[in-house]
């Protein structure tokens, strides 16, 4: 059990700046995120796209913003628990006990949900009656590529993940790449390489096709793919891989007894506390009259939520407002040498 003052769910820009705000008022925190890297939507959806509305930063990309925030909170040596999704929360006396899907447990006096639109999950095939094969021969990520050796693999998708795996696995497996249109959206070098392997007969590529049905008793034996013009083609295959990017799902948050309005959590605008004492929500996932889904609003929300956490972490102390420019205590927390 990891004990801390505040558990932050979500390592996007708003969660990261909240680490800073907790840190300068002397509270410890741990951060959990379901992605394999820090940065949330900024890193997953638009790492290279410029953002123009961060105050005092005329232009930066999602990746630059993330790196700057990581730099800004370096002094607090915060632990990040990546690739983990919070599954359960429960209150035991005055503490919140939180458990992730990997079994990590936290005890904290408050929780700040900075989860955006929820956790990122792979987008899945919509084909009916494939559930029994999912995680067996139908996969959305690769954990052990050795299982594909000398097998036939059908890869769906048109982005870098689909192309990169098609290229890599073509060394040891028979690879068939299927995409819904003629254009691939991966890096040009990968597209060229895939086309070259096709010329050499090492990859088969079918475009304007989508998955239609999957056949097999115990395991996948063959699939049908359907062309735009409705013609069907049968392919014998051992594995089916889908790389359609990630989608955000609210997931277990919906089951924690929090009030929900569509996919957002209503909060008060003094401390961004939810209907549950000690649970706060900031950033895209919170809602209140006038809410703007901007990163800058999330920074403000995080600053107030951090102060809201103080009374739960230190019930016998009074929070005192201090500026970073003048407070010796704050500067020492930030590791500033005078």
């Amino acid at each position, binding site marked *: 059990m990891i004990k801390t003052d505040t558990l932050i769910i979500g390592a996007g820009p708003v969660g990261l700046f909240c680490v800073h705000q907790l840190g300068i008022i002397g509270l410890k925190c741990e951060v959990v995120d379901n992605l394999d890297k820090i940065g949330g939507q900024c890193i997953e959806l638009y790492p290279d796209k410029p953002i123009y509305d961060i105050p005092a930063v005329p232009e930066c990309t999602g990746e630059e913003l993330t790196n700057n925030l990581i730099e800004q909170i370096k002094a607090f040596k915060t632990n990040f628990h990546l690739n983990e999704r919070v599954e359960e929360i429960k209150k035991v006396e005055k503490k919140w006990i939180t458990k992730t899907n990997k079994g990590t447990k936290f005890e904290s006096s408050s929780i700040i949900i900075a989860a955006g639109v929820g956790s990122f999950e792979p987008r899945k095939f919509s084909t009916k009656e494939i559930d029994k094969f999912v995680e067996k021969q139908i996969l959305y990520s690769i954990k052990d590529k050795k299982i594909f050796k000398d097998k036939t693999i059908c890869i769906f998708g048109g982005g870098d993940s689909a192309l990169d795996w098609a290229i890599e696995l073509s060394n040891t497996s028979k690879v068939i790449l299927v*995409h819904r249109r003629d254009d691939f959206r991966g890096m040009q070098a990968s597209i060229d390489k895939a086309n070259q392997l096709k010329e050499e007969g090492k990859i088969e590529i079918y475009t304007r096709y989508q998955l239609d049905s999957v056949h097999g008793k115990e395991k996948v034996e063959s699939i049908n793919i359907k062309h735009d013009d409705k013609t069907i083609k049968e392919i014998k295959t051992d594995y089916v891989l889908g790389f*359609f990017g990630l989608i*955000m799902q609210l997931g277990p948050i919906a089951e924690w007894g929090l009030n929900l309005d569509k996919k957002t959590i209503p909060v008060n605008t003094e401390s961004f506390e939810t209907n549950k004492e000690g649970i706060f929500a900031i950033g895209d996932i919170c809602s209140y009259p006038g809410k703007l*889904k901007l990163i800058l609003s999330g920074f403000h929300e995080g600053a107030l939520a951090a102060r809201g956490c103080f009374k739960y972490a230190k019930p016998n102390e009074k929070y005192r407002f201090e500026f970073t420019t003048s407070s010796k205590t704050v500067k020492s927390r930030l590791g500033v040498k005078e």
Partner: protein
Amino acid sequence: MAKVTYIENNGNSHTIEIANGLSVMEGAVQNDIPGIDADCGGGMACATCHVYVKEEWFNKLPKKEDGEEDMLDMSHEPNKFSRLSCQVLISDELDGLTVSIPSKQG
């Protein structure tokens, strides 16, 4: 101002007047039309406001910008009449536009 008709996957249809300048996505979200999630809020970053545009309307819409087709790759069962509704802005010319909502988003 344009009247836009949204047809849900179950056949329910909703016709709504939407002010010029709003997107077809915003019109749906502000009027609680089920089936248009718009998780990213209109940033062309999520493909959860995917709609099928009625054939006779498809070519009357402004063309897709860079990136929309890439995002449509990630949508649920796209076809040649697929658009991201956040990228279709309302103007008087679109009065009567009809779009169908897929069985699910993402």
